[in-house]
Structures are given as structure tokens and as C-alpha cells.
């Protein structure tokens, strides 16, 4: 295990090295407003870090994404459960879901500008419209995979409807919900920047556009590096461990304890 980890680490470091080298070579041959070199970007990153508005911008974007995502989670889950519970409802609303999924986030952003102008609501709306259908679809699909045999089992123990919902539906839907929420968060995060470039006066997206307008390409690169680092941290530091813990029952874990009186391998 530790050896495999060392190999993996070496591979990752090599990849990073190759990318850095290519970047450095490319930057040496191109004007810096097209491709600034690693050193210049590092400097931009440091000055960004120390700028007055940095914390505010990051906080503003995070707040908008979180709010849009939170509303999308609540409404998407409730609607997904409703559609999962009623086939009539599901058949009636299904076309609407396809519609939602085909409309581009850029179109939502334009609508948001028309309806909400330059405000937080614009970004929140775009995140919501992108994330909500994803969560809804996954929860709905999860609700359809609930095994009626387990529901009957719970009934045989005389469990109430609420308890069946919590103890059978909940755990069945959770992996689907998690997959949907993860996807929705990733998309929501990305479209929030698009929305901010046209519909905000603060936040990471706004700064990106400002940097682009002023041809501060090194700033754009610095923000990009920062965002990638942030997402990797969130993914590896929170989401992956959470997922592994939540769905540990799916993974083959430690070898079974010694006592196996019935050595009959069966499905």
C-alpha cells in the first residue's frame, strides 16, 4: 500500500513537472499578455492574496454559490421525492425537466440580468437553475430504485410511513442524491463565474472579467490556479472522504472475521 502511494505521488509530481515545463517553454516564446510565465503568475497570485478585496470577492462568490446550491438542494430534493412518489406527477412534469436540462446556463444568465439586474440574485438564480434539475433528476431516479421488498420488511415490523421514509427511502436515495449534489455543485460553481462576469460588481467572476478587460492575463491565470486549487481541496479534503464514509457499506472492507462456520460462498 505505501509503495503504491509513493508510485502514485511520483507520477503526479512528474505530470505537474511536465505541465510546468511546457508552460515555461511556451511562455518564453509568446508575449506575456497571451501567455504569462509561471513566475509572473506566481507574483500575481501573491499580490492577489494581499489585495484588499480578495477575501471579499472570494466570500461573495462562495456565498452566492452556497445560497443557490442550498435552495436548489432543498427544492430539488422535495420535487424529486414528489415525482418519485407519484407516477402521474412524474409523467406530467417530465418534459419540463428535459427543457430545464437543455437550456444553457448562459441563457439563464441573460434572463437573470433582465429580471434581477446587477445583483446577488442574478448569480444565485443561475446557480439554482443549473443545480436544481440535476438534484431533482437524481433524487427522482433514486426514489424509483427503492426496493419494495425492503418496504414490505419494514411493514412486517409495523413501522410507520415516516419511519419507512427515513429508514428505507432515505438510505436508498442518498447515493443518488450525493452524486447529483456533487455534479450540481461543480456545475453551479462554474456557471456562477459566468453569471458574475456579466451580472455582478464583486466576486471572482467580476474580477476575472475586469482582469481580462485590462489585459491582465497574469491575474486571470492567478485566479484560475486559485480556483483549481480550491476545487481540488474541496474534492479531496471533504467530498471524497465523506462519500467513502457514507457509502462504506458498498466497498469491500477488511477481510471477514475468522469464524466462518458456513463456508458456502453464495450471492
Amino acid at each position, binding site marked *: 500500500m505505501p509503495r503504491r502511494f509513493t508510485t502514485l505521488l511520483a507520477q503526479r509530481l512528474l505530470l505537474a513537472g511536465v505541465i510546468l515545463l511546457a508552460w515555461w517553454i511556451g511562455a518564453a516564446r509568446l508575449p506575456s499578455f497571451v501567455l504569462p510565465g509561471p513566475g509572473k503568475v506566481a507574483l500575481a497570485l501573491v499580490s492577489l492574496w494581499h489585495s484588499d478585496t480578495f477575501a471579499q470577492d472570494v466570500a461573495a462568490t462562495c456565498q452566492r454559490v452556497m445560497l443557490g446550491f442550498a435552495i436548489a438542494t432543498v427544492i430539488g430534493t422535495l420535487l424529486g421525492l414528489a415525482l418519485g412518489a407519484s407516477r402521474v406527477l412524474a409523467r406530467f412534469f417530465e418534459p419540463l425537466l428535459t427543457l430545464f436540462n437543455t437550456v444553457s446556463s448562459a441563457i439563464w444568465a441573460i434572463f437573470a440580468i433582465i429580471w434581477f439586474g446587477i445583483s446577488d440574485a442574478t448569480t444565485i438564480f443561475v446557480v439554482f437553475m443549473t443545480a436544481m434539475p440535476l438534484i431533482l433528476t437524481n433524487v427522482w431516479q433514486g426514489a424509483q430504485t427503492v426496493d419494495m*421488498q425492503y418496504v414490505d*420488511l419494514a411493514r*412486517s415490523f409495523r413501522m410507520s410511513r415516516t*419511519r419507512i421514509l427515513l429508514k428505507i427511502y432515505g*438510505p436508498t436515495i442518498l447515493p443518488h442524491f450525493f452524486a447529483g449534489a456533487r455534479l450540481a455543485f461543480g456545475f453551479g460553481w462554474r456557471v456562477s463565474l459566468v453569471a458574475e462576469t456579466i451580472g455582478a460588481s464583486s466576486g471572482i467572476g467580476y474580477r476575472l472579467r475586469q482582469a481580462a478587460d485590462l489585459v491582465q492575463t497574469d491575474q486571470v491565470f492567478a485566479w484560475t490556479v486559485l480556483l483549481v486549487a480550491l476545487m481540488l481541496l474541496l474534492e479531496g479534503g471533504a467530498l471524497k472522504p465523506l462519500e467513502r464514509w457514507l457509502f462504506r457499506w458498498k466497498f469491500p472492507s477488511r477481510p471477514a472475521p475468522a469464524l*466462518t462456520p458456513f463456508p458456502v460462498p453464495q450471492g
Partner: protein
Amino acid sequence: MIAVPETLPDALLRAGPAPALETAGVAKRFGAVTVLESIDLTVRTGEVLALVGPSGCGKSTLLNILSGLLAPDAGRFTVGGVPAAQIADWRRIAYMFQEDRLLPWRSVRDNVAFGLEGTNLSRAARHARAREMLRLVGLESHAGAWPHELSGGMRSRVALARSLAAEPSVLLMDEPFSKLDPQTRSQMHDELLRIQAGSGMTVVFVTHDMEEAVVLADRVVRLAAWPGRVIDVIALDRLARPRVPTSPAVAEQIRVLRSRP
């Protein structure tokens, strides 16, 4: 609502004149199909009763009615002498399905404790009870394992432990071991009889395997199909235990049962 739940266990445990379960004229229709037609059945307290018959004879439907999960259209059904309509707490009657139905997202211990979660037992008490039940079926060391790590026989024993956790007076089983291989099934039979002998629990099970019926049951109720009705009841009390299918007396009994129309 009614004060009956408190008196029910006593009524069930009392080896008095009231049978554990009794039906009189019980009938059930699904649409135009009469699944059960006037079933008169008495299950004595502490006995092991087998329900056998061809498919379509309504044995599973009868079991569902006995469990209180399905209401009959007509007839009388009493549990320990108490009319079914007056019983508020049915947990004293456990139901074991054909499949083990272990919840894959729960550890073995939490699967066994599952049925106790509707009760007012504390979390610690539920876990203690689950461990006790796992000890009973010899799987104490697997309490922390996940269902997918177990063999078919072990899963079946976990399902049995789960059914027993609420300390039922009556255990109903719908072909519970039919998906196991013969060797494991026979081990489960021994396990069940050992536990039954220790607790004095009443057991009613459905099977289409005459060997299983003869090995386990004190009495065998034979049902006919279309519509489901009782043909006869065969008493096996005089057949000595433990019963090995290969012993002449047991084999003869199995042969007799199989040859009957």
C-alpha cells in the same frame, strides 16, 4: 387505544386452552379470484406447523393473514384467543421472508436491531439485544460486518436473528430457507429447532419441500388450490426427534406425504 396490547403476550405465552392462532371460515379474494375459501386452522401454542400445497393454494396469503398484514374478507381470526381486530401490537408475531432482505447499508448488528427501532427500547438496549440474538445464531463475531461480506447461510441466520430480536411468541416463515443449498438448509433447520425448543415459540412455516415439512413440523397442514382450502392435517408428533431425512421412519413419512394427491 385499547388496553389489549399488555394482555396479549401473556395470553400468547399461557399454555392454556387458547391456541396461539386460530382461524374459522377465513376467506380471501383478489378481484374475481377466490384465493382462500373458508379456512379453519388451529395453531397450538409452542408447536411447529407446516403449510404445504401446490402453487396457487394461497399458503402465502394465509401466512400474511396470520401475520396481521392482510385482512381476511370473511371469517374469524384470533391470536391467543383475542380477536385480531382488538390487537394493537402485532410485534409479537414475527415474519420471515423467503429472501433474507438484509439492508445492504446496515451492519449485521444494525440489521438485527432494525425491527426494534419502532419500539421504545433505547439505542443501547437495542444494540445489546441485537448482540444477544447474534450470539444465539452463532454470529456474534460478525456484528460489525456488512451483509455483502457474508455467505448465504450466514445471511439467513442474520435474518433469523432479526426476526427473533423482538422476542416473538409466534414466528411465521414463508419458505425461508428455499434459496439455500441443501447442506446449509439442513443446518438452518437444526438451528431453528434448537432455538424453538429453547424458547417455546410457536412456528408456522410455508414450504413446498416435503422433506423440510417432515423434518421440522409437529403437524403438516395440506392445502389444495383453486380455491385454497385445507385438505387434511397430518400429525407427526409420534415421529422421534431429531429427524434425519435418511432414517427409515422419516424417509417413509416423506414418501407418504409426497405420494398423497
